[in-house]
């Protein structure tokens, strides 16, 4: 039977809905050789771990599906049993700065994937592509610490997604054209990953009871006189937010 509600009943819920424009993308976990490869092309570590995420103007919180298998043991009824979790690819869109670092970041990351043959005679007509190993600890092209954070203006809670085995698989052609002077260059790239984990995977957060979106950390925090749990949350938010001046500098270029 429906429950009779007044505006005061629903206000706490409807008045606290999440806004889609509070998020941050942060790339991380690239192998040393890949970082060096990108660094030698002007894409330094600071850009990879901070600026690239800030230039990401459109992202998605990742989704997944469950592959099912059907059983018809009961007449007229089809039962479905899940047997595999399927992770969909991730599409990110970036603004391109005047140093073209967004473009270089994605272009040369993909180039690195297929650069196992080295770059001697790169322009030779008989040059062939060989792949780099995906998970080699020093030279792999997949990264394991790319994250998407979702939060609100109040910064009270953070929803964290960690991607394992992420790499770019489809860099879309970037449209450029004559037109209004205000049009920005946008880069779109599709990423594949092995899987993602919702909630923090940091060992520190796991120990504190915050890992994998566990709420036990909040209880731990309240029981702690120094309120370290909440401090930890704020630290995470500070870690992803960065100084406002840096953001302004980035977007004015």
């Amino acid at each position, binding site marked *: 039977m429906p429950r009779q509600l007044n505006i005061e009943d629903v206000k706490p819920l409807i008045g606290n809905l999440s806004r889609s424009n509070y998020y941050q993308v942060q790339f991380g976990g690239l192998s040393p050789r890949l970082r060096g490869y990108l660094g030698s092309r002007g894409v330094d570590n600071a850009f990879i771990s901070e600026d690239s995420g800030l230039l990401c103007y459109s992202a998605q919180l990742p989704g997944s599906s469950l592959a099912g298998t059907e059983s018809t043991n009961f007449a007229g009824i089809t039962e479905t049993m899940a047997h595999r979790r399927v992770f969909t690819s991730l599409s990110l869109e970036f603004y391109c700065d005047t140093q073209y670092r967004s473009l270089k970041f994605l272009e040369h990351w993909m180039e690195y994937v297929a650069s196992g043959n080295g770059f001697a005679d790169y322009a030779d007509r008989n040059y062939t592509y060989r*792949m780099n*190993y995906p998970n*080699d600890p020093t030279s*792999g092209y997949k990264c394991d610490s790319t994250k998407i954070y979702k939060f609100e203006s109040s910064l009270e809670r953070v929803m964290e997604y960690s991607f394992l085995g992420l790499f770019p698989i489809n860099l879309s052609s970037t449209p450029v054209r004559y037109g209004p002077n205000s049009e920005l260059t946008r880069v779109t790239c599709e990423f594949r990953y092995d899987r993602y984990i919702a909630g923090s995977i940091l060992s520190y957060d796991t120990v504190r009871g915050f890992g994998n979106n566990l709420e036990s950390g909040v209880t731990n925090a309240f029981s702690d006189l120094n309120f370290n749990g909440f401090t930890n949350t704020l630290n995470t938010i500070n870690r992803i937010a960065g100084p406002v001046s840096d953001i302004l500098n980035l977007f004015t270029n």
Partner: protein
Amino acid sequence: MALSKTLQYPTNIASGNNDYFMVGIFNYQPPGSGRRIGRDTDNRVLNITGSKGTRNLKRSLSNIILPMPDNISDSNAVTWDSDSLNSLQLAGINVAEDILTALKAENANKAEQLGKVVNKFFTGAGGAALDPTVRDAVKKSLIGEAINVVGGNIDAQSLISRTTGQVLNPNLELLFKGVILREFNYSFTLTPRDLNESNQIKQIISTLKQSMSAKKTASNGGGQGAFIQAPDVFQPVFMQGSRAHPFLYSIKQSALTGMNVNYIGTGSYATYGDGTPVKMQMQLRFRELSPVYNEDYRSVNDGVGF
């Protein structure tokens, strides 16, 4: 090339409670080694050799750990076939038995005894032959067989059917004929993720190929060049963590009778920087060394048995 002790792909798949497929490699021990052929260790004749499928193998030469195959199925079968035995054949068997008895009898006139046996057959001591119809059918059957001896082509059953509208009851039954050896086909997808896994895959393929090959040098010395020695044998097992898989079937010691490797699993030639193919597919065909018997299940605690 000496075999490496333990080879594993993917790295660390045998940790935790992961499911994986393990193959132990052993030197082949002939079933009759150390005793008279056809006899067991107590010198008893006609014992079922290796009914448990174990051949007192020594320590494994190597262990190979692989991911679970892309296809896991088993097929258990025994041979049964239809068989018939009509009353004439049955009577013939009885006569043969009586003849043997008569010939073995001591202090008796063997000719007289044989005469009694033949008389017994024709007078139908079995009861059914007393019936005139049966006696007539028997007669026609024997006539047919007699004509066949001199080059005729008459089916005794047809003759009876033509004259009486009946056929001899074939007493058709499905009878057990024997056991067969099981065969297993497994397919593995090999995609090395780093240089270490590439090396492991390379060694796994090499080890399996080497171990399934016959040996030119006899280990027991002598007769070099005159004989070739059997390849190594394999003990495949499905594992979960450090124990046998709690559900899947067990496999007896087996021979690796076939191995196929497709080095272009991507559809077109593609390699890593060191030449390792990006994707390979390996198919292994095992055949058990001994059949599965009812008693084998006594030693199985978990899973579906053999």
